[in-house]
């Protein structure tokens, strides 16, 4: 039994099945990866599990620690220990890094906030006073968002494309933070199509056209993705007879 169980999840948007009868177990304390080509439904899966607006009307069920969370709102799910880091984090005019992180932090002291910022490579003490707005680069905002998740100490976190907008050096910091989350007992789910990010996981799921195609070790999924998804040009499900446009 997983910490998070997705049971026969089907999501239809605009007449198209974006997620199609997905059943997945995410095990507690593991680093998982959900991989697949663009448009496969990876981010939609995270959005649906979190209960974001526009993704609440689905068939099937989602269980956290054996209890259905289908009827819970986004903040109720977050209060149960689930959270999400967006591929492109939001900007907040005037809201300081301190107040942004404090909003979710278990330890709201400045020292604790500086520690999580340092943990994602933002060691300069002045970051705490800065606004989470356009004066921060996309990469810096991504790190601030990850710092807020470190401060939250969630049971389970989705990191959507954690390498997006991040330079190579900073990416190592992000990976360190992922390990910190795991060490603290969090279950981490990486949403990615990057082999580099996939390597950080212990177990992976490959989805395409909203369906689970394969699951298993990182090596297995990486091989499958490179051999069958990449040649497929990210347009068709590789093992679907005759293919089918997304």
């Amino acid at each position, binding site marked *: 039994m997983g910490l998070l169980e997705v049971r026969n999840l089907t999501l239809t948007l605009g007449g198209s099945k974006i997620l199609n009868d997905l059943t997945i177990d995410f095990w507690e304390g593991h680093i998982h990866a959900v991989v697949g080509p663009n448009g496969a439904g990876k981010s939609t899966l995270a959005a649906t599990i979190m209960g974001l607006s526009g993704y609440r009307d689905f068939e099937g069920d989602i269980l956290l620690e054996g209890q259905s969370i289908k009827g819970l709102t986004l903040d109720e799910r977050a*209060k149960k220990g689930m959270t999400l880091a967006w591929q492109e984090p*939001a900007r907040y005019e005037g*809201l300081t890094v301190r107040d942004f992180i404090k909003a979710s932090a278990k330890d709201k002291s400045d020292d604790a906030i500086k520690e999580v910022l340092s943990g994602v490579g933002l060691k300069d003490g002045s970051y705490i006073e800065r606004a989470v707005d356009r004066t921060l680069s996309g990469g810096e905002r991504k790190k601030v968002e990850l710092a807020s998740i470190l401060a939250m100490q969630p049971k389970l976190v989705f990191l959507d494309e954690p390498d997006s907008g991040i330079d190579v050096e900073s990416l190592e910091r992000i990976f360190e933070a992922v390990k910190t989350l795991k060490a603290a007992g969090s279950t981490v789910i990486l949403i990615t199509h990057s082999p580099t990010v996939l390597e950080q996981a212990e177990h992976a799921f490959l989805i395409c056209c909203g369906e689970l195609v394969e699951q298993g070790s990182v090596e297995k999924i990486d091989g499958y993705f490179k051999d069958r998804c990449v040649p497929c040009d990210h347009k068709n499900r590789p093992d679907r007879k005759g293919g089918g446009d997304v």
Partner: protein
Amino acid sequence: MSTKQREVETLYSQTGTGTDVLKDPDVAHLTVNHNKVLTSHTLEGLEIDVKEIEDGIDVELVLRRGVTIDKTVHMCFGMTPREGIQRINMKVRLEENSAISVLAHCVFPNAVDVEHIMDAEIEVGAGARYSYLEKHVHGKTGGIKVYPKAKIHLAQKSAFKTEFELLRGRVGLIDIEYETTCEARSVMDVMARINGIETDFIKINEIGHLVGEHARGALTSKIAISDKARAEIYNTLTASAAHARGHVDCKEIVRGEATAMAVPTVRVNHPRAHVTHEAAIGSVDTKQLETLMSRGLDEDEASDLIIQGMLS
């Protein structure tokens, strides 16, 4: 403690500043309750001439040429009575190359039927710098009407920065009219930050004339309204000289049954001038909201935090 001292304590207790600042001999100050002058202290080069009138005061502030006042000047225009009119007729003149920063506390904690009328004429001399922050603290009834009106003239190479802040208590009715004329290479920065609730009505009419070459100006309004509050923002910026640059910016977050309107007007009368505008009215951004909700804040807590940031 004398009655005067008690009134001063009462007014400053609302501001978050406290009265200790008034004990500093290097801090100039003026405290007025309705039409009574409670404190007045000036410094060399700064003249503050105050006259009590029937329903307020006439005040003339002159800063002599080349004088810089290092510490912020504190002014407090308040009314502890529940009813009445307070009229502040203010003339400000900064002579050449002088500099001053003023923090004006406008405190109306008990207002049930109060009008606060501010009429100001401000002349900022060549090369002078004037910073004026007006912070309002109102009570919970909304029984207050505020009419701040100012005509400002900025001489060459001068700078004028003003902020109007009303974030604590009910707005009631506020009707701001500022008109600023900017000569060559002067800089104008006018901002209003107001939070309206219940049946509050906010009306802002800020006008800037960039008449001199290389004059620069910004008119910024940040408004949050909820319940049945209303806001109407009319900001106008005209550039009529070479290399004049300006921007009009209006952001309004609307919740509940509140209604907002923004009418930014930009006029350019010179081919080498440039003015831009930006107006955004709407509910709290979904992504901002959902990010905070995904950290465990409920919708109201998340909205409040976003608005607090915008108005900060």
